[in-house]
């Protein structure tokens, strides 16, 4: 480093002033990031002694892509405004999707209800009370067609938050698209399909980890051959974070999962360049502004380096970490819900400064229920104000080169590599899941966060400070009971108008080939024979069994 002696000398001088200053005005508290990283009072070139612009950053669109995957970033195209939605039945959700498109949303994002997430039809007794509550119920091809009625799937991209039964929902979507006249190879969108994080955090798993992972690789292989514009997986840190993980754990566990998928796909015989460009990611944007931005920057750099080092791709695109972001649901408070608009705006800015490819902003009322139309509109407008008014998207990676930002990005990277070592020592991700390592790590962080709140070491405005007596008058979205009746009638009708011999034949063929062949064509054949989601999942449970998790707390 040039002038190192000078910096040191000046630092010594500064320490004297500092000492004097804190005698009369002591620091208010200890300063740490939300992940618990200890922070200095300021950062200078002394913390970046080994900083090398090309090694650490590169220009935008150049390896290691710390500054962004595209040379122009938001100057050419803004991120996709993508609001997660879905509730009730297919017809009701179709109405909400059209509302969002009308107000400037540029990509769709579907939330499914719990029965659908677990591969159960709505007439299954286990689903009582859950219909349409946390998302939309989709059981049949007819449901999928109704959800996208008059929405041209040829032109819009759709993200579907579905994991355990992702392959089946994808099959339904492909056939719904084809029935509109859209060609399979032109369909654009994402299925979340990240089963590993289900065992770690979100807990919407169905089958045991090994066959589940096999099914994921089937979709990656199928996508690389038949749907070149589709993202067959969205490797997700969001749920890991929301379950309590720190930013460091979120990033480490997510990237470890991602590397596992790549490894397994290569073991299957796929060429890394045929599928790696279609892998996508999904992160949380939490409230610690700088830490989140550093996390996104570190994510791109680590991924590019590790893919290059481990799999030596020829295409540069294979090194890109493209990601969707959602603001932090857990940061929303039930108290003084309007404050959530501000939290979401800060988090959304972090996502944009971190170079996200698409963004969902939460609505202020989500600590109470699914959002109303008005609340969703404000959330969408928050993105539009950042995009069109704030000037933030004008320059790529505007915080690049900040001493603090670069130090923090390096620090997060180091901590992530420490977790990689731990996971390797455990024998990989699946062994870690089986032994409860990830679940314990996440539970521990969640517990620590709560303790900090209880002890007032951490402030949540309106919750443990600046509290008011309030009579809450926020409107709540209600899911009318008629939607369930309507859906169940449709399902019954669908089931009574089909040839059961064809259904059973297709399901048997799928079962016979469950372990040996790529299941996507068999799933699609089953759907064409009018098998329902629940029937297809049940047939696979008969072959693979179900996963019961060890209870850890």
């Amino acid at each position: 480093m040039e002038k190192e002696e000078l910096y040191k000398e000046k630092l010594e001088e500064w320490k004297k002033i500092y000492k004097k200053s804190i005698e009369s005005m002591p620091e208010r508290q200890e300063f740490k990031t939300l992940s618990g990283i200890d922070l200095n009072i300021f950062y200078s070139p002394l913390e970046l002694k080994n900083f090398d612009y090309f090694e650490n950053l590169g220009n935008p669109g150049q390896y290691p892509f710390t500054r962004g995957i595209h040379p122009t970033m938001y100057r050419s195209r803004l991120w996709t405004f993508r609001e997660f939605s879905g509730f009730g039945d297919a017809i009701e959700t179709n109405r909400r999707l059209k509302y969002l498109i009308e107000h400037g949303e540029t990509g769709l994002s579907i939330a499914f209800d719990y029965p659908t997430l677990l591969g159960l039809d709505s007439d299954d007794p286990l689903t009582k009370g859950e219909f349409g509550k946390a998302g939309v119920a989709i059981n049949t091809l007819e449901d999928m067609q109704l959800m996208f009625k008059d929405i041209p799937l040829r032109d819009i991209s759709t993200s579907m938050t579905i994991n355990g039964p992702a392959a089946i929902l994808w099959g339904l979507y492909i056939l719904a698209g084809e029935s509109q006249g859209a060609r399979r190879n032109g369909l654009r969108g994402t299925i979340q399909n990240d089963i590993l994080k289900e065992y770690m955090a979100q807990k919407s798993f169905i089958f045991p980890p090994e066959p589940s992972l096999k099914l994921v690789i089937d979709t990656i292989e199928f996508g690389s051959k038949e749907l070149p514009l589709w993202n067959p997986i969205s490797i997700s840190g969001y749920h890991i974070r929301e379950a309590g993980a720190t930013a460091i754990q979120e990033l480490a566990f997510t990237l470890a999962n991602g590397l596992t998928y790549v490894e397994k796909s290569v073991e299957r015989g796929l060429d890394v360049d045929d599928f790696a460009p279609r892998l996508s990611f999904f992160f949380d944007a939490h409230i610690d502004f700088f830490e989140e931005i550093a996390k996104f920057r570190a994510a791109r750099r680590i991924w590019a380096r590790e893919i290059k080092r481990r799999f030596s791709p020829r295409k540069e695109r294979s090194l890109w970490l493209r990601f969707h972001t959602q603001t932090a649901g857990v940061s929303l408070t039930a108290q003084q819900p309007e404050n959530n608009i501000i939290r979401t705006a800060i988090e959304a800015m972090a996502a944009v400064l971190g170079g996200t490819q698409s963004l969902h902003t939460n609505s202020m009322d989500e600590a109470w229920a699914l959002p109303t139309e008005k609340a969703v509109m404000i959330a969408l407008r928050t993105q539009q104000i950042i995009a069109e008014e704030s000037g933030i998207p004008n320059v790529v990676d505007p915080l690049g080169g900040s001493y603090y930002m670069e130090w923090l990005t390096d620090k997060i990277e180091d901590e992530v590599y420490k977790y990689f070592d731990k996971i390797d020592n455990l024998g990989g991700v699946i062994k870690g899941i089986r032994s409860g390592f990830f679940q314990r790590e996440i539970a521990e962080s969640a517990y620590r966060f709560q303790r900090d709140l209880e002890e007032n070491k951490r402030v949540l405005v309106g919750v443990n400070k600046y509290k008011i007596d309030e009579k809450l008058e926020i409107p709540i979205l209600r899911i009318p009971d008629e939607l369930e009746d309507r859906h169940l009638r449709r399902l019954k009708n669908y089931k009574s108008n089909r040839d059961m011999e064809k259904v059973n034949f297709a399901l048997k063929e799928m079962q016979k080939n469950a372990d040996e062949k790529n299941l996507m064509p068999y799933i699609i054949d089953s759907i064409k024979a009018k098998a329902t989601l629940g029937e297809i999942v049940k047939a696979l449970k008969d072959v693979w069994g179900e996963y019961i998790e060890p209870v850890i707390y």
Partner: protein
Amino acid sequence: MRKIRVLIAKPGLDGHDRGAKVLARSLMDEGFEVIYTGIHQTAEDIVRTAIEEDVDVIGLSVLSGAHMYHFRRVLELMKENGINDVLLIGGGIVPEEDKENLIKMGVDAIFNPGTSIQEISDFIRKNLRRPL
């Protein structure tokens, strides 16, 4: 004096277990005996465990929006089994209006996000129905 026994349960298909786990562990710190069921429990599972474990309190955590159904079912089964000295409390994503209806139905308390552990543990100690 014996310890107060609390069952924390996750009814239905909901997998959001962060709150349930944090609460289970925090109540242990507060000196309670806590049993956590894990996810995907039916109302039958929960009431059976409550009887087997002879608990003083059942706490349900529901973030899936299906709270009205699950609380009603657990209340029904408690009644059927003649359980009238066990507190039934809950938490999760529960709108204010539903909260009022649940209390009318016989639920002892619903705690919203942001409730402190202290508040929950004070409530349990103050409202306990069985002798210690």
